[in-house]
């Protein structure tokens, strides 16, 4: 697959001297769903804003569909639709006027059928002659999505699309994103909710303090970073972990009825079989065993913590 967006050594220093991006490299593949995950203030919006032409970069380069965003900005921007984080709408315009304006602005010739279709896709069709100020928050957000889609972009940026959005809309948003993605649109969304990245994305980029900590396919990331936890349910409760098993760093839970053992999937020896046979020779009877993979959340916390330790060490 070809990268549709290439970001090279991108830096941004705001006028007050703050370094919001410190040399980001990122390739975004055509047709993928990429989540940019990071805490508030990590630099997600800054990164997106530079790619979309709203903020000027301080250094580095970006190409979109092979077009440099500085030199060949017109071609680059034509490919992109942006749904910004903040709610910005033409309050006194009708839904129809605002959405068809966006199509014209992006140089696409008037096509009422297309506008109708986008509005229908977002369940806005019966509100098309309504002034935007009269719509609910969720509907306003859908108007913003409609504005971003009506010029038929190949790439869609969604900056924190589910901030302040109810469960119902969130669900229909994921559906819409998948549907768009199936039709070939590359999707980049930012979030600071790990569950969101986990639910929708194929690849996840983790941003912290203006640096891209890593980018991985979601499964690979979870596997690679994934500590697994083996939980053993016991027939008889234990008062304490026997001293002979101390090398396994077991933790006793469930009022002494479960033993939890953390191991690294990627380690050559996970120690599982040794643990199980030691349990048996201790005469500890097992009722059940299960394993659980770390969620992206734990992975993320680990990464950021490691980052902070690295910083402290410097």
């Amino acid at each position: 697959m070809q990268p549709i967006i290439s970001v090279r050594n991108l830096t941004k220093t705001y006028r007050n001297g703050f370094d919001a991006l410190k040399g980001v490299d990122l390739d975004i593949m055509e047709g993928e769903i990429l989540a940019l995950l990071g805490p508030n203030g990590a630099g997600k919006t800054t990164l997106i804003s530079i790619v979309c032409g709203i903020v000027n970069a301080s250094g580095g380069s970006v190409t979109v569909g092979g077009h440099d965003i500085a030199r060949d900005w017109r071609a680059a921007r034509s490919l992109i639709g942006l749904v910004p984080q903040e709610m910005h709408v033409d309050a006194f315009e009708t839904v129809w006027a605002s959405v068809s304006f966006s199509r014209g602005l992006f140089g696409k010739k008037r096509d009422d059928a297309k506008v109708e279709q986008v509005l229908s896709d977002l369940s806005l069709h019966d509100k098309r002659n309504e002034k935007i100020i009269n719509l609910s928050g969720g509907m306003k957000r859908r108007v913003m999505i409609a504005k971003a889609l009506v010029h038929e972009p190949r790439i869609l940026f969604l900056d924190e699309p589910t901030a302040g959005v109810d469960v119902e809309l969130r669900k229909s948003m994921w559906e819409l994103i998948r549907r768009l993605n199936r039709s070939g649109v590359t999707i980049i969304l930012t979030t600071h909710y790990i569950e969101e990245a986990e639910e929708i994305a194929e690849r996840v980029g983790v941003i912290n303090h203006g640096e891209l900590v890593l980018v991985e396919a979601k499964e690979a990331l979870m596997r690679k970073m994934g500590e697994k936890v083996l939980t053993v349910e016991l027939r008889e409760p234990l008062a304490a972990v026997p001293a002979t098993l101390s090398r396994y760093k077991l933790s006793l839970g469930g009022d002494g009825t479960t033993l939890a053992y953390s191991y690294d999937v990627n380690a050559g020896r996970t120690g599982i079989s040794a643990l199980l046979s030691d349990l048996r020779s201790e005469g500890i009877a097992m009722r059940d065993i299960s394993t659980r993979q770390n969620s992206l959340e734990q992975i993320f916390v680990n990464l950021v913590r490691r980052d902070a330790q690295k910083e402290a060490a410097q």
Partner: protein
Amino acid sequence: MNLTAIHAIYRFEMARWWRTFWQSIVSPVLSTSLYFVVFGAAIGSRMEDIGGVSYGAFIVPGLIMMTMITQAIAVGSFGIYFPKFVGTIYELLSAPVSPMELVVGYVGAAATKAVALGLLILATAALFVPIQIAHPVFMLAFLALTAVTFSLFGFIIGIWADNFERLQLIPMLVVMPLVFLGGAFYSTDMLPPFWRAVSHFNPVLYLVSGFRWSFYEHADVAVGFSLAAIGAFLAACLVAIWVIFRTGWRIKK
């Protein structure tokens, strides 16, 4: 050139104008017409003719200029300030639209509105006072040049302003006095020599004088000066806007 975008912006702005019909069309025409009623019909009959023109008719060109200048600045500045204020500017910045295309769309719409207002006021004035237009082509040229120049000036103010107070600052403190003292209500011949000399530093005087000449062939300064003055101001605004967009000043972070 993204002509479709220019057209989209222009249409969007014109639609807003129609939607606020009473405030943006009826109100300026009505308030300017009150001058004709007061000065043309009521007081005008007691005033001497100026250069062979009745006072009521004499003030018409200046009043049209006054309204056009203030409206062009107001509309031109608001058109670009508003997206900045509510945040919808993100869309203008992320669109494949060049700064000059933005300017053509917004300033074009503002200038169209100003010209339309100017003509509406002229038509209204003709109901109250006798009007004659000696040089219609010059008249329209002054109308169009003034509308474009001050819409562009307004656009620059709209980009510069980062709050509503600043948006009003220059129109209220600088433009309003200049326009009021721009010779709409009198000929500079009527002033004492000192004030006559001072008034020649007022750029609006050149516009009013040239515009009035195209009606009655009565001018305070030579028509060539009037054209040069408006041309110079237009050029200054164009340079300013070029610099603003080159540097991304106050628009991009």
